[in-house]
């Protein structure tokens, strides 16, 4: 497949699916509480409404405030290009860029978001930024070790090579290292995408909000872009988990356009299932105290590190899968 087709399919899929995930999670949570909840496509309507509204910009803020939404959205899209939704559509030579690039690109977006939170001079924004700084500095080592282990296992740091390798191995989830990686990635998703137990996405209380605090001053299309960027980031992490650890593409025996469509559909199914799983986790836990978050981060780091250890205990790849 050539680059252009890959880029088009990738962007279309991710951009179109991202708001759907939020809707599914909200719906699942509502159903569990015996409410009807908002419709699944609600976020699309919200984004559409926000884009058409005007924006209010504070006088005391600088160019960072205006640039941040665009940076966040574009970095999210750029990172999305590095994580293929289906290995059947990746170009013949692999994608330039690997997971380290992905993590750094997200870091760029996060930096601008934190700076924007400080920019308006409101206390909520500053508070959100400092909390976000703490949480993300604890989550970064975990992501890096986790993906590094996956890279060691598959012998490459490029994400699509990793996915392809994982698919060649049959049933990765019964292997000790990948079980740990699954759990580690799940807790990373919780931390990076601001979900319970790390941060409540539905609150605007000073005591509990982190991500929302940084977005508090935004309105109109700026807000739309920020929200969309966050949703895309969430989908990218979910794609990472789903395609690395529960791969499906090579099961499809045939090739061609039909195979691509089938692969994309299965991918959608996996994402929906993972969204339901995330909703289940959210339903069954409560938000942690801020100072208990390092415990969760430590546990997540340990999970990744243990996966790394287990990989070595298995003989460093010689006796990998039976």
């Amino acid at each position, binding site marked *: 497949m050539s680059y252009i087709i890959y880029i088009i399919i990738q962007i279309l899929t991710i951009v179109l699916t991202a708001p759907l995930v939020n809707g599914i999670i909200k719906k699942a949570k509502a159903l569990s509480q015996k409410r009807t909840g908002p419709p699944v496509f609600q976020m699309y309507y919200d984004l559409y409404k926000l884009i058409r509204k005007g924006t209010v910009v504070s006088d005391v803020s600088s160019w960072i405030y205006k640039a941040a939404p665009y940076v966040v959205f574009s970095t999210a899209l750029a990172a999305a290009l590095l994580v293929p939704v289906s290995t059947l559509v990746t170009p013949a030579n692999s994608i330039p860029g690997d997971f380290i690039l992905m993590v750094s690109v997200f870091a760029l977006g996060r930096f601008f978001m934190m700076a924007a939170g400080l920019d308006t001079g409101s206390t909520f924004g500053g508070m959100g930024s400092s909390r976000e700084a703490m949480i993300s500095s604890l989550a970064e080592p975990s992501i890096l070790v986790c993906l590094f282990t996956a890279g060691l296992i598959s012998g490459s740091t490029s994400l699509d090579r990793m996915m392809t390798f994982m698919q060649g191995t049959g049933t990765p989830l*019964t*292997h*000790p*290292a990948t*079980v*740990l990686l699954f*759990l580690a990635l799940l807790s990373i998703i919780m931390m990076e995408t601001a979900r319970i137990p790390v941060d409540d996405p539905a609150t605007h209380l000073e005591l509990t909000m982190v991500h929302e605090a940084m977005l508090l001053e935004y309105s109109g299309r700026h807000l739309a872009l920020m929200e969309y960027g966050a949703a895309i980031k969430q989908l990218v992490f979910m794609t990472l988990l789903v395609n690395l650890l529960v791969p499906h593409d090579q099961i499809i025996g045939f090739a061609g356009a039909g195979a691509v469509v089938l692969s994309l559909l299965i991918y959608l199914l996996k994402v929906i299932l993972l969204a339901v799983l995330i909703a289940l986790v959210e339903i069954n836990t409560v938000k942690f105290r801020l100072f208990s978050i*390092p*415990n969760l*981060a*430590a*546990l997540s780091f*340990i*999970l990744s*590190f*243990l996966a790394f*250890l*287990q990989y*070595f*205990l*298995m*003989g460093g790849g010689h*006796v990998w*899968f*039976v």
Partner: protein
Amino acid sequence: MSGLFDTLSVIILLTSFVLVANKRIKSYIKTFRIQSAFIALAAGIMGIQSITSEGRIDVLVVCFVIVVLKVIYIPKLLNRTYSGVEYKVEKDFILNIPILVLICCGLVVFTHFCIASIDGISQGYNDLQIINSVSVVMIGLFFMISRKKAIGQIIGFLVLENGIFITAMFATDGMPFIVDMGIFIDMLTAVMIMGIMVYQISDKFDTINIDKLNKLKG
């Protein structure tokens, strides 16, 4: 099949990490229950394997005993002992929890280096299972040291015994039956005795903080 045991051994190791990261006493008991359930699962699979290949029924009996004892009876006993005591959450630790979890990680690495230097143990696969099981033993021991409440020491002891049991299972395909039964009876009695003692300590000392038990010195 051996891959399944690898995964199970890793999950059991994971539960012991979750145990160290916990602060509430009810969670200690619940995590212990989950760990015993996974051990019973591993024993059950091994039992089915041994029945179909050798016709030995003893491993399945052992699995059943584990379920009855460690998953059902002992947690119930501990919960009942604990409902009479007032402390529900541990508040002070020697070091904070993330550091404790990291130390446990260090213990796993340490175990790896110890066991890897023994040749003859590893026939390739068993290495991983034995290292994980011995790590559970070490983590149980570490848990006993790092908690100040008496219940921490009881649970640490139980996790220690769990670890020893799975080491026996993974390394040798089950110890002789009578030895297994003896181990269970011993452990059950030990837990009952410790439970009674916690009661008496709480009665006499008005606290179950172990570092208040410091009158005998020298």
